[in-house]
């Protein structure tokens, strides 16, 4: 790397941004692989219901299908905001 390279460092390392975005996305997509088609719909509707009572973020509701031996467990987690500001 040259000593004057700092002059051209505007777009520094978009590759690492790409890598980080892909890691998260692909991990998420792999976890959904083979899962029933209704999961995204279920996630959306749960979010709508929860939002009637609590002002949560779009990403607050996670629905995952977890394999536990021969059983499949539907794992639903809802992250509430720090100050649980009830809107109702």
């Amino acid at each position, binding site marked *: 790397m*040259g*000593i004057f390279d700092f002059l*051209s460092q505007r777009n520094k*390392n978009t*590759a690492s941004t*790409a890598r980080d*975005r892909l*890691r998260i996305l692909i991990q998420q997509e*792999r976890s959904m692989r*083979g899962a029933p088609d209704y999961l995204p719909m279920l996630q959306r509707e749960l979010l709508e219901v929860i939002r009637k009572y609590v002002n949560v973020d779009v990403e607050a509701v996670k629905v995952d299908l977890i394999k536990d031996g021969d059983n499949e467990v539907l794992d639903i987690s809802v992250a509430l905001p720090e100050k649980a500001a009830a809107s109702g």
Partner: protein
Amino acid sequence: MEKSLAEIIVVTSGKGGVGKTTTSASIACGLAKAGKKTAVIDFDVGLRNLDLIMGCERRVVYDFVNVVLGEANIKQALIKDKRFENLFVLAASQTRDKDALTKEGVEKVLKDIADEGFDYIVCDSPAGIEKGAFLAMYFADRAVVVVNPEVSSVRDSDRILGLLASKTRKAENGERVQENLLLTRYSPERVEKGDMLSIADVEDILGLKVIGVIPESPEVLQSSNAGVPVILDDVSHAGQAYTDAVGRILGQDIPLRYTTVERKGFFSKLFGG
């Protein structure tokens, strides 16, 4: 069922425009050059292009669908390459509907080819994850997943890897298709600058080692212009990298080439030239 001896290799990617047909043509030529009797099949019904890249577009008489429908036999439909006497091309149909291909039809054609004593059958998959792509991969023993160091291509490759592990005959029989990653359009300079994913990044994200890295190079376009697969240009870096990749498919241990920046002198380093 009798097991055919021909190894079936699907060249696939999900995303279009990443170099599937270029790769299919070069791998097929490379295998033939190594003495293997090889057929390469275009699965892109309606968007035939392999014939053009192979340089045999004016010699297509019968195509894949003709054989499936029994309108021609496999010997009539296989186009003999003019450079290698052990290399044959089966063109896709340009006029038919995509639904002309069925699982049974494809199985029959692959069996007919295997019965002719072929060592390798290379299946050039269409883009996407629909019927044509599914049929191209279904009977595969090995998959060469072509990926560019670019976000959408990497994501689509992961999707294809998922399908290879679930929607293939091998997967249905509790076996695995042998998965190989082929990184194309790679630019070591851009990787060093930090604006392109590196080999290690792609391997790490997809959890799979590369079987070859093809550098971005002007000869790829020149080769398709001429209808001569780039692997036959043994001066070009891309051609040499394809030759190495074919060697690895054949089980040879060959180190990667052209994957790092060629070092410059002191002054150009100092001034970042």
